[in-house]
């Protein structure tokens, strides 16, 4: 039994942790919140130099060709750090290209992603669309897209957007070069003040089909695994923050961590995060081995991770009491990011239902 990350993945995690502990964190997130830049360009250069954007890109396209395990550990570390760079968006777009891209499409975009010259993102949301599966605002006609995607994470500064459009059997994936004509990019304010989002208006913009509905759903599963790891990273730091405060804050003559009303909440944070981690490891394994369990594992990973993150982020504010509710406290970053990750690929309820649909299909096949 070897249900654990490889030694290579663990070494990458340790290296990433050291870099991010030194260069990122809540103070850097606060600086980004107070500034106007779409992302921290200096940090992005460092991230590219570390080879993170090249990690998943095959060597033939100028990358390192690492496995899904490495992508997962990087997503977790980035989630821990709140680093204000478009890494997760680029990573998810990379997965779409790897999964559905033609040789020419991969050759066109992957080298730029690997060397950091191309920032990429994914846009499925349309403001009032209920789920990733109900795209109707953006339509493809004769190689051109029209409609609006909002909010799109890390849109400002991105060169490539992979957007969903209404197709015959459901949403299909399209590549949009954001430097082309017929494209308007504006800021879209969201609850997350560190990760910037944009409104992408397409008016007959040139687009290349990347994949059909099946590819869209296969990509969603992979993105869900990565987002689960990001959520676990963010949630774990929220828990660590709550635990550190409970060891230091005194009320009624005791450290508040002695009270079971406090310590049991911390224990519950840990239990939820560890359950999520177990599901997310299942997802990492299924993604790395292209296992038939991927749909089930990915949906479970996403739902469990969202539950764990939400609980840790909310109870972290609660355990801090009044100080936790102030603008100066760092609690808000995890609380707000919790909403961003919850939105990013569709809601908890939608993914829970997707999990049950996957189980029903599996049971029907077995019967």
């Amino acid at each position: 039994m070897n249900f654990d990350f490889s030694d290579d993945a663990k070494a990458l995690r340790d290296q990433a942790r050291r870099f991010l502990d030194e260069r990122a964190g809540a103070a850097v997130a606060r600086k980004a919140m107070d500034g106007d830049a779409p992302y921290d360009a200096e940090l992005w250069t460092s991230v590219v130099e570390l080879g993170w954007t090249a990690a998943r890109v095959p060597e033939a396209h100028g990358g390192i060709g690492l496995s899904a395990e490495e992508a997962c550990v990087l997503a977790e570390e980035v989630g821990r750090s709140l680093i204000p760079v478009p890494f997760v968006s680029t990573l998810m777009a990379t997965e779409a290209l790897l999964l559905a891209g033609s040789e020419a499409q991969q050759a066109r975009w992957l080298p730029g992603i690997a060397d950091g010259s191309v920032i990429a993102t994914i846009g499925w949301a349309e403001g009032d669309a209920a789920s990733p599966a109900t795209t109707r605002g953006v339509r493809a006609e004769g190689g051109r897209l029209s409609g609006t995607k909002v909010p799109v994470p890390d849109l400002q500064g991105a060169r490539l957007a992979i957007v969903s459009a209404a197709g015959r059997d459901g949403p299909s994936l399209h590549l949009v070069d954001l430097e082309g004509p017929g494209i308007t990019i504006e800021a879209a304010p969201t609850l997350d003040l560190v990760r910037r989002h944009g409104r992408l208006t397409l008016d007959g913009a040139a687009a290349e089909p990347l994949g059909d509905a099946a590819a869209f759903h296969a990509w969603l599963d992979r993105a869900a695994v990565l987002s689960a790891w990001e959520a676990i990273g963010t949630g774990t730091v929220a828990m660590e923050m709550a635990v550190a405060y409970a060891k230091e804050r005194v009320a009624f003559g005791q450290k508040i961590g002695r009270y079971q009303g406090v310590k049991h909440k911390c224990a519950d944070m840990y239990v939820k995060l560890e359950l999520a981690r177990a599901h997310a490891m299942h997802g990492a394994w299924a993604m790395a081995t292209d296992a038939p369990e991927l749909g089930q594992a990915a949906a479970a990973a996403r739902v469990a991770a969202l539950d764990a993150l939400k609980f840790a982020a909310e109870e972290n504010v609660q355990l801090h009491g009044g100080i936790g509710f102030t603008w100066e406290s760092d609690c808000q970053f995890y609380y707000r990011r919790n909403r961003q990750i919850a939105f990013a690929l569709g809601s908890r309820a939608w993914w829970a239902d997707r999990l049950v649909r996957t189980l029903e299909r599996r049971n029907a096949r077995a019967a």
Partner: protein
Amino acid sequence: MDFNDTPTEAEYRAKVRAWLADAAAKYKDMPDAEGRNAEFVRRSKDWQKTKHDAGYTGITWPKAMGGQGLTPMHSIIFSQEESKTAAPTGLYAIGLGMCIPTVFTHGNPEVIQRFVPKALEGGEIWCQLFSEPAAGSDLAGIRTRAVRDGDDWVINGQKVWTTNAHLCDYGIIVTRTDPSKPKHKGLTMFIVDMHAPGVEARPLKQMSGGADFNEVFFTDVRVPDAWRLGEVGDGWKVALTTLMHERLAVGGKPRHSPDYNTLIDVARQIETEMGPAIEATHVRQKIADVYLADEGIKLTQMRALSALSKGQIPGAEQSISKVVVAKNMQDMAAFALDLSEAAGFMTDGGGSDLERLRASYMWSAGLRIAGGTDEILRNIIAERVLGLPGDLRPDKDTPFNEAKPL
């Protein structure tokens, strides 16, 4: 990352499987021996002896104690394969899992020679006499007294929640030998003969209706000083050895418990005024929640096994499992019984799924308490894993016989 055995593990599993296919075959055609009856005991004894003669008992024990000197993975692999057969298991779990390791860790050479080999081959059955009516989570609060009398000790008091006491030959018992010392300091552990005069085991009827445990009364029961485990006053330290094994033993979901697939099956058969229950949003969300707990625990246990397989010591996985499993069983059973309306409530209603769900609902209430309550387990996670400070214990340093509750 994979779910496969290492080559060594695979080799051992193949060997065990081949042996079991033959050795356990005879149980396949026998009707189930109900609970703890004489037939169950006879079969269990026979099977333990068979395993012993083939070198499949005491798998992780040192060779000097008659064990095989192998790793926890070997033991787990054997149990996994054994559980796929119809061979009787369970009767020796507490004795060989907890009592005898305590005996060979803390007993004198004569005691080890007298008791360990006989227990390992199944000749004598053991129980653990720890909990008392006034000492559950706070085990160090026990009141059963042992008083020195010549070369013997004389025991008076009551134990409770003792598994299989009526079938057992010997037990390990924690007693208070010095009430003038603080609670953790005045305890001593002994081996006690369950057939000795003054020992009376009575079945304890649970709220679920069954009687899987006993209460045991001790009236002037004599135990030789040679049967003491550890020093006088060291009973707490000795008991911790035993409990360490208990927390490892009570973790996963009980075999054959209803799970998320049961809930799917039940929901598929129910027609509501809004349509099939399986199509209702709240039902589907609940199925997802149950899946997350059921499969999350299985995957968490695989993480613990992976650590063991690499020769590492697992972390808090068993505590996590214990906190999640019982409450999830209770919630899931209540939800499914609710969905089934009257048929879920009536004890002669519905099919076998509902019968299992009703049993699970009743049993899970006990499971949330047995082997560490949900609350104690949360304390353990908060204090040992997260490093939060312990609860205040106002009686900790006071002589036991002077401690007053706040």
